[in-house]
């Protein structure tokens, strides 16, 4: 009987990769997130939408503790990844960030070679085995479809790549350390439509192996690629449902107003 309960727990954990429990965020006295409970499913793409300043980026950045550096930041509540509270005292933040990768709004490759960019995460873990690193770099670049474009220039500066290539490089850099969750903070907002389409396609493929949470301003994008969509407004989670349902038949009036472009 106990065994049975364990397996149920485990399968639930597998299903809910990420859980937040009554999460509140304060910047000094300002309450940016007002108590959010949410379960994010494994191997799905979950999109966060909402007008500027609604807290969706702040909320996303809680999952790899990127808000820790902001002056006056304070959090209440619990965030669980695979059932473990990542805000517990003894959590190793560096270790957490290897498990929870992040792709940023503007492509931000290091001013190093393409190779060094992808190998960075492994090198800081102390991995020195050249052939392992080489394989891993090639493998990661292949996953993002960049290998054929750059294999001749692997030792050239990453800054010479186009914006779209740089962003795919940043995704490859994240994949190289084998995270289980990838957070994306408006990853295509600085890119042209063709590069955007390539990245979207890539994100769609990645969900087989990774749990993806993406913040986007672009509702078409959320509709195209995500399985679930969460609508945030003024620090609150207004509605969270399957994307198909949320975009065609939202429960709440606010959601409907936003997705039909009446505000935001």
């Amino acid at each position, binding site marked *: 009987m106990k065994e049975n309960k364990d397996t149920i727990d485990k399968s639930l954990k597998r299903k809910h990769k990420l859980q937040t429990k009554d999460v509140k965020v304060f910047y000094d006295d300002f309450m940016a997130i007002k108590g959010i409970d949410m379960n994010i499913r494994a191997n799905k793409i979950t999109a966060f939408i909402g007008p500027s300043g609604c807290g969706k980026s702040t909320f996303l950045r809680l999952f*790899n503790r*990127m808000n820790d*550096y902001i*002056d006056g930041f304070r959090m209440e509540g619990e965030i669980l990844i695979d059932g473990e509270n990542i805000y517990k005292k003894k959590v190793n933040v*560096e*270790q*957490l*960030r*290897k498990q929870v*990768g*992040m792709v*940023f709004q*503007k492509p*931000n*490759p*290091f*001013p*190093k070679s393409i190779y060094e960019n992808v190998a*960075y*995460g492994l*090198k*800081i*873990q102390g991995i020195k085995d050249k052939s392992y690193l080489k394989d891993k770099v090639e493998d990661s670049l292949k996953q993002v479809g960049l290998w054929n474009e750059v294999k001749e220039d692997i030792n050239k500066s990453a800054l010479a790549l186009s914006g779209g290539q740089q962003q795919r490089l*940043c995704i490859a*850099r*994240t994949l190289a*350390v084998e995270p289980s969750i990838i957070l994306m903070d408006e990853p295509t907002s600085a890119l042209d439509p063709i590069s955007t389409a390539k990245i979207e396609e890539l994100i769609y493929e990645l969900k087989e192996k990774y749990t993806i949470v993406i913040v986007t301003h672009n509702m078409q994008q959320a509709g195209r690629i995500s399985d679930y969509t969460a609508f945030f407004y003024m620090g609150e989670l207004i509605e969270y449902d399957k994307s198909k349902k949320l975009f065609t038949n939202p429960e709440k009036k606010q959601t409907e107003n936003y997705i039909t472009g009446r505000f935001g």
Partner: protein
Amino acid sequence: MRKFKETVIEKGLQASALVTIAVTVGIILVLSIEAILFFKEVSIIDFLTDTQWTPLYTDKHFGIITLLSGTLLTSFIAIIFAVPVGLSISIYISEYAPRSFRKTIKPALELLAAVPTVVYGFFALTVVTPFLQTFIPGLAGFNSLSAGLVMGIMIIPFVSSLSEDALHAVPNSLREAAYGMGSTKLQNAFRVLVPAASSGIIVSIILAISRAIGETMIVAIAAGQQPRLTIDPTVPVETITAYIVQVSLGDVQHGSLEYRTIFAAGITLFIFTFLLNTVSYKIRKKFREKYE
């Protein structure tokens, strides 16, 4: 009327710019003319290859490398000391220190550069040298070690302040990338920020070298006045600048060969600092292009 005023102001500004250029050109001209007169009497090959510098004695030798070795040795000691310390300070201020601390510590550090160098010179001679003598028994009263170290203290703010500016100018997105990949603060600083700010850091080091090479009072007071071709930091040496002071203050007759040696020495010094400044200017220009 207003137009007239504008013209006057414009011409006035132009004139002050031209005066600066004229003064520089004048200095270079005087240096060159006197140096050419010097090289009419002393062959440039002797000047560059002789290993003794004794223009004030009866047996005259004009080997500039003797003085140059003193200059390079003291500057080398200063740089070896100032770069690691200055760079550590800049990393600490830029990445570790609380913002309020940064605001107080930076001007405080820059005060180091505002201390009159004659004070540093006496500090080296009367405090640092006796202190070092307690555990380096063979250390002479005048030596390049303590002069170099104190000069190093003086140029710390050149390294730390400019390097800190360079580190601070690294876009925040790179810090986010580094932390997002699971870097520790130290890994972020040394693997991402320092390489990204390298051109600015190199410029700061070059300017510090240039300052050290041209420094006069500290070495004139604490390093001695004995031209000597050596890399031994414990014995007295004479730098180019110290020699120029020595001759300028002495009773050498104007227009004599001895008198002209200071121009030959001066132009050597000038070529060095000019080259260093040019290199740093080039690097800075390249650096600006990269981030704009």
